């Protein structure tokens, strides 16, 4: 399926876009991250959370929704 992937903050600076569509043929969040890391190796050592359909997920979660977001911590004030 085609995933609509949203990026925020420092993550969006690395991917150079705030949103893109990525074809995905596997199953889990871990497999999705492998794909993302091969596309953007600089994300490997960055801290972020993955959300699917506006819910936080962990790496074992099955991808069932077409909308994914990568959320890094912000610290500025």
């Amino acid at each position, binding site marked *: 399926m085609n995933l609509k992937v949203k990026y925020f903050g420092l993550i969006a600076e690395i991917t150079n876009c705030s949103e893109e569509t990525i074809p995905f043929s596997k199953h889990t969040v871990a497999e999705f991250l492998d794909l993302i890391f091969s596309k953007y190796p600089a994300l490997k050592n960055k801290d972020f959370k993955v*959300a699917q359909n506006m819910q936080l997920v962990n790496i074992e979660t099955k991808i069932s929704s077409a909308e994914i977001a990568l959320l890094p911590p912000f610290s500025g004030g």
Partner: protein
Amino acid sequence: MHRYNRHIILSDVGLEGQNQISNAKVLIVGAGGLGCPVLQYLAAAGIGTLGIIDFDSVEISNLQRQILFGISSIGQNKALAAKARLEDLNPTIHITAYPEALTQNNALLLFKDYDIIIDGSDNVATRYLINDAALLTKKPIIYGAIYKFEGQVAVFNYKDSANYRCLFPNPPDNMISNCSDVGVLGVLPGIIGTFQANETLKIILNLGDTLNGKLLSYNAKNNQTYTVSIPKSDYSITEAAFHANRYLVPNCDKPIKQIDFEAAVQLNSVQFIDVRETQETPKLDLEHCINIPLHQLFESHDEIDKTANKVFICQSGNRSQRAIAFLEKLGYKNCYNLAGGMQSVIKNKTYNESR
């Protein structure tokens, strides 16, 4: 009550709601980009007791976004300057300024005096400190954070909801962050801080739907928002663990030694440590100078000569102070901050003649 007429005529607020606002006690940690708009709206709304804690003082580069301050506030402590401005805005409320850093030593006692804690801090360490102290004292946190053109807002630890550690369990290794010299669109903290003030009032008034256990992300470039629910984790903390933890918050217990360029080059066995990012210019053209960007200090501080006199430098003298505060906690001694940073060095005659 004429002052609050526009609140009172709202059927969702009324006289009863305005009294709830008057009885509320709210602590704002940080009177910076986020704290200023939060304080402005909460003082105007008539929050009966406002606490403001900030150790930092006003600099001219703050005025682009920290709207409570003016030229006359430069050099003053932010908590005290904000209190003075807010007392003119609303003299009917009680405001306490704490011109000090939030630390493990004062956080719990301070939080106990308030109903709601607002996180307007500008560094990762203080955010974890606020989170854990609020868990221990059972206070809701209205969280706000910004990065360049984007911001995050959330309500944590309210009605048994998730907290910041349910989202990001542990601080990154390099938990000293580079906030003061990362750019930010001036209006962005205004927007995010105003979101925080709104969530605070809704909690006090028990009104509408809050961002409890949810993280809202806002992008000022395209006006898009994204809200994610945060499941509650089983994280908990004891008071003993809280006191044993190393939060590494910026330290101002003892003042950091300042030095100018003339005096710095006269020091015996001196090492200059430039904590700017590697691409920042102008470069510091000196012998005995190393470059360790602030965010790499945690993993790379071994490169520093422990026995030397150490002079820390950045663009304007802010990040270098954070570096010193961090290293002093690790036991480093003989650290000096190059006052005014590289901006003052490039104007120095001795420096220019030596090149």
